[in-house]
């Protein structure tokens, strides 16, 4: 092997190594940071594991919003077939209202109670026509966060 060829080989191997490491880092991080989205019906059909961060979307059930007079809220998210109880502590966003679409992010505290860390009163994309979403999103880059 001449020196030039050897140099070239080293270069190629080195760049390949860097590439593989970079891609691995990216993929592993991606895997760790995925938050799945479920509807109450999907949740009723699966094993509930506590601590797993997930998003749940549906409508806020009518007359289900309770407030203890301060920052603690509880409400029910329903898809008209199944429902889940949610508790939340904090300031609710603008678009949060009864009978309106809502997405919450959080985890189960026990099998029947979901604690929301974030309430994204992003209109539930599965139920909203894009015109309405786009109206919000287009130039506004609407997001609930």
């Amino acid at each position: 092997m001449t020196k030039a060829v050897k140099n070239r080989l080293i270069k190629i191997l080195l760049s390949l190594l860097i590439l593989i490491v970079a891609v691995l880092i990216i993929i592993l991080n991606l895997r760790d940071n995925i938050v799945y989205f479920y509807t109450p019906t999907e949740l009723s059909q699966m094993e509930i594991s506590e601590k797993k961060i997930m998003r749940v979307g549906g409508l806020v059930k009518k007359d289900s919003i309770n407030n203890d007079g301060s920052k603690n809220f509880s409400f029910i998210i329903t898809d008209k077939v199944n429902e889940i109880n949610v508790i939340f502590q904090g300031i609710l966003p603008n678009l949060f209202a009864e009978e309106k679409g809502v997405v919450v992010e959080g985890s189960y505290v026990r099998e029947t109670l979901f604690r929301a860390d974030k309430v994204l009163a992003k209109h539930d994309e599965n139920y909203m026509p894009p015109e309405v979403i786009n109206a919000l999103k287009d130039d506004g880059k609407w997001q609930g966060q």
Partner: protein
Amino acid sequence: MKNRIIYFLPIIVTVFICLFFFFSLSNDTSKLSSPIIGKEVPEFSLVSLFGNKENFNSSVLYSKTPKIVNIFASWCVPCRAEHDVLMLLSKLEGVEIYGINYKDDPIEAKNFINELGNPYINVGIDEQGRTGIDWGVYGIPESFIIHNGKVIYKHIGPIHISELDDTILPILKDLK
């Protein structure tokens, strides 16, 4: 030139990405073909939402004038978005809209109509969703154009104002 091949790489990547976007676009539920089109409407008889009206029967749909059947519910958010368009449509001459209130609480459905206006000639209550299943409902709102008891057209999702002029009205015009 062994490096040549590298210059073709962008083309390959582009093709993949375009294909991906293409499938994402066509993965659209409103494109689903419906087995019901061209067939006769399923038989049903539903109690009317309006106390003073007769049952909403499938026999009403066997008529020379085309009818629109709209499946909706008060809990469905896009139905609200669609309602303005339905109101607009109902004011046009010779357009008859019937509603099927799907898996809903009749009281809430009444509130919904009182609040947003009534575009319907009659609304049948389908609390259990059985009739909806017969109609092959995939996701509401869905709208059907019926002529002589046959399903001519099915629209999944809320009717957008532009679709009124582009699709719905021309079909109605043809049928007349």
